[in-house]
């Protein structure tokens, strides 16, 4: 089965990102293809490398990064949502004249078309939100 996963909420505030992570991991471990994880709304906040949770808690951002490294996952942050919420990569920093970037490794910023494309190409779209 070819899966697309959509995450609508940021880390820690809401369980959606946790649920999406555990679901994605379980799907990969069962041998399914996860074509793309698309982060929308506050979900783009899952993609900042500046997150610093207390040591006795899970690191939600790093967990996504590690899963992506292991399975070559495509983690996409919606560009419009990311711009509104201050998630910046090199390209965005240059285009919008920002003095820093904060995107985590393995994440990339791209357009909403990536969500539509994933929905067209995949057998299932699974949405996690508030």
């Amino acid at each position, binding site marked *: 089965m070819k899966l697309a996963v959509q995450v609508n909420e940021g880390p820690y505030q809401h369980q959606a990102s946790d649920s999406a992570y555990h*679901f994605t991991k*379980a799907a990969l471990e069962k041998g399914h293809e996860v074509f793309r994880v698309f982060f929308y709304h506050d979900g783009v906040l899952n993609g900042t490398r500046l997150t610093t949770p207390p040591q006795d808690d899970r690191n939600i951002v790093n967990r996504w990064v590690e899963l992506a490294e292991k399975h070559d996952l495509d983690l996409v942050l919606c560009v419009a949502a990311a711009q509104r919420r201050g998630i910046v990569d090199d390209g965005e920093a240059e285009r919008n004249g920002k003095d820093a970037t904060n995107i985590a490794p393995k994440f990339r910023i791209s357009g909403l078309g990536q969500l539509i494309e994933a929905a067209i190409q995949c057998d299932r779209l699974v*949405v996690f939100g*508030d």
Partner: protein
Amino acid sequence: MADLYTVNKSPFEKNSLADAIKFSTDGAAILLIEDGVYGATKGTAVESLVTGASGKKFYALKADVKARGIAEDRLIDGVELVDYAGFVDLVEATDKVQAWL
């Protein structure tokens, strides 16, 4: 096969469970996750939502049930516990997923 309907809200907070039941077809699989698992508990003022729904099969995500201290004997009869691998299996076994947030 029918669809999988996920519900992540407590039935005391929002009508997502009621909606998922109302707007689902016969043979629907309804999976309660996150705060949605409270909808799977017995002896509540809203348990008839689940006990009165015919032609639907209810599931609850085990990790979320356990995190909320819900003992298995507090679950409504017929609600099946699944782990994340079981969640994936439900996605595969149904036509598509509808998220009732």
